[in-house]
C-alpha cells in the first residue's frame, strides 16, 4: 500500500554563520500492508512525529522516497500534496491545538472540503455523515471547540480526518492527552472506523500496553532509526534488540499487566458477606 524507502530528514538550526544540522530520520525503510494496524513506538525525540509529518507531506524528505504504488508522494524533489491528501490523513496529539478556536465545528469540518473543491451542495451530507460516524450528533456542528470536552474535540479531529475517506489514517499520540476511559473510547472508535471503512492505521504511541493490545505490527524507533520491526507477538515475546528489551522490561515493571489479571480473578471471594448481598457486582 505504501512503501517507504531509505527516508532521511534533517533539520538545520543555528545562525547564518554557524549552521548546524540535526538528523531527525536516518535511512527509514518499511512497507505498509493493506488494512493493518502498524504501531510506531519510541521515546520523545526519536523521530516518530517527523516520520508522520513526512508521510502526510508536511515535511519534505531529504533523501529516499515515499511511494504509493507507482505514485511518488514525497521525495527530495518535493511533495505531491493533492495526491497525499486524498490518501493519507493525520490526527494530532492535542485537539485543543489542532482545531481552530475561532471556527465552529461545521467550519472546521468544511475546510478540507473547500480545499478539495467539493461542490457546496454536498457539504452538508458529507459533514453530517462523518460527525455521526464518530458518535456525535448533528447538533455539535454549531459549537466551538472550547465548548466541548477533550475527548469530544478529539472525535472532531477524527471526523475531519475521515471526511475525504482516506485509505490511510495516521494517529499521532492521539490519546496521550486524554484520560484512560476517554482513551478507550477513542481507540475503540478508530478500530471500528478502520474495520467499517477498510482503512489502514498507523498508530504512533509511547504506551506499550496499548500498542500490544491493538497493533498487528510494531516499529521500534530510537534516535531517528528503526531498531526493530516485526509482528506484535514477536516483538513482545522475543524482542531481539537491546532497546526493545529495555522498553518492554520498563513496561512490565510498572504496568498493570495481564499476568496481574490472573491473580485478580483468583482473589475475588464470592463468599464474602458484601459480595453475597450484591451478586451482580461480585462477578
Amino acid at each position, binding site marked *: 500500500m505504501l512503501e517507504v524507502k531509505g527516508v532521511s530528514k534533517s533539520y538545520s538550526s543555528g545562525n547564518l554563520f554557524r549552521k548546524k544540522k540535526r538528523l531527525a530520520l536516518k535511512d527509514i525503510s518499511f512497507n505498509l500492508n493493506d488494512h493493518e494496524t502498524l504501531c510506531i513506538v519510541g*521515546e*520523545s525525540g526519536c523521530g516518530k512525529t517527523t516520520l508522520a509529518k513526512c508521510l502526510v507531506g508536511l515535511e519534505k524528505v531529504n533523501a529516499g522516497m515515499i511511494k504509493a504504488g507507482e505514485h511518488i508522494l514525497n521525495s527530495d524533489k518535493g511533495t505531491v500534496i493533492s495526491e497525499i491528501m486524498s490518501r493519507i490523513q493525520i490526527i494530532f496529539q492535542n485537539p485543543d491545538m489542532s482545531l481552530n478556536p475561532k471556527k465552529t465545528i461545521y467550519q472546521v469540518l468544511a475546510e478540507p472540503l473547500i480545499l478539495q473543491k467539493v461542490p457546496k451542495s454536498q457539504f452538508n451530507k458529507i459533514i453530517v455523515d462523518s460527525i455521526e460516524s464518530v458518535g456525535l450528533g448533528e447538533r455539535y456542528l454549531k459549537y466551538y471547540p472550547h465548548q466541548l*470536552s*477533550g*475527548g469530544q474535540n478529539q472525535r472532531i479531529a477524527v471526523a475531519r480526518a475521515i471526511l475525504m475517506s482516506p485509505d490511510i489514517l495516521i494517529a499521532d499520540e492521539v490519546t496521550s492527552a486524554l*484520560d*484512560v*476511559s*476517554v*482513551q*478507550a*473510547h477513542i*481507540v*475503540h472508535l478508530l478500530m471500528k472506523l478502520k474495520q467499517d471503512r477498510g482503512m489502514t492505521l498507523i498508530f504512533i504511541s*509511547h*504506551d*506499550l*500496553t*496499548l500498542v*500490544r*493490545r491493538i497493533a498487528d505490527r510494531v516499529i521500534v524507533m530510537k534516535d531517528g532509526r528503526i531498531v526493530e520491526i516485526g509482528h506484535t507477538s514477536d516483538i513482545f515475546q522475543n524482542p531481539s534488540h537491546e532497546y526493545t528489551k*529495555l*522498553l518492554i522490561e*520498563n*513496561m512490565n*515493571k*510498572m*504496568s*498493570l*499487566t*495481564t499476568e*496481574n*489479571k490472573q*491473580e*485478580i480473578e483468583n*482473589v*475475588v471471594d464470592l463468599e464474602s458477606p*458484601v459480595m453475597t*448481598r*450484591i451478586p*451482580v*457486582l461480585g462477578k
Partner: protein
Amino acid sequence: MLKLRDVRISFPSEEGVLVPVDTVDLDVNRNETFTIIGESGCGKSLIANSILGLLPKDAQVSGRIYLEDDDLLTLTEKALKRIRGRRVGMVFQNPSSSLNPVFTMRSQLAEIMKYSGKSATINKMTEITKSVGIDDPIRRLAQYPHQLSGGFKQRFAVAFGTASDPDMLIADEPTTGLDITIKIQLIEMLAQLHRERSILLITHDLDVAYTLSDRIAVMYAGEIVEIASASAFFSRQFHPYARSLMDSHPSRDMKPIPGTAPHISQKVEGCRFNDRCEYGHACCCNKHPELVQVDVDRFVRCHAYA
C-alpha cells in the same frame, strides 16, 4: 499527619455557586503514600492546592484541614508561608512552567533553602541534587531550565520540593508528559523518598498509582467514591466507577465508560455516577449515597453497599 474533614471548595460564578469539590474526608498517615486518582476535572488538583492555600482568591474553602495539630484553613498568610516548603513540600505538574526560566538551578535552589532558614552551601546543594538521582550536580546546578531535559527538570522540581526536608510532600501529577524510561526513574526516586516522609500523590495514571501507593482514593465529579489500601484496591474495586475506570485500562478489557461525567454546573440529585452505571437502581437517581465503611480498610460511596 494530614487530615481533611468535610472539605468543600466552591467558586462563585454567573451560573450560581459551582462546587467542584464536595465533602472530602481523608487521612494521610505518617510515612505513607496516599494517592488520589481520578480523571481530569474531578477536582483532585484543587484538593492539592487547597492544602497550602494556593487556590485562586475567589475560591471558598470550608471544612477543616489539619496538618498534625494546626488547622491550615484558619492560619494567616504569614503562618502559611512558614509551612510551605518547610513542613510541606510541593511538586507541580509541569516543570517547564513551575521553574523560573531566567535563573540557574543553583540560584533557585539557594532561594528555597534560604527562605526555609537553611544555609545554602554548595556542599548541601550538591547533596540534595544527588539525592534525586542527578549524577553531575555541579554542572547541572549551573544550568538554566531550558538547558535541561524534561526528566532533569522534573527531578529538580522534586529536589526543590524536598530541599528543606519537609515531613510531607504533595506531588501533583509529577509524571505527566514524561517518557516511560524517565517516568520509571522518577517513580523509583519517589519510592525512595517515601520511606522517610508522607506523600500525597495526585495522578490520573493508574500505572503510577499502582506502583507507588499504600492507599488509594478514587474521585469522581468532586467526590471521593472509594478509599482502600492499594493492594486491596487493585485486586478488587467495589465502586462501579472505580471498576469501570480499571476496565478501561489497556491492560484490561479496555472497555469505554458510556456517557460523560456531569458538568460542575449540573446539580445531580442522587448518585453522581448513576446515569453511567450498569448496576443502577431506582434509589440511585434520587438519594445521594454516603461514604460507608464496608471492610477494615475500605470505604465506598454506593447504595449497593449501604
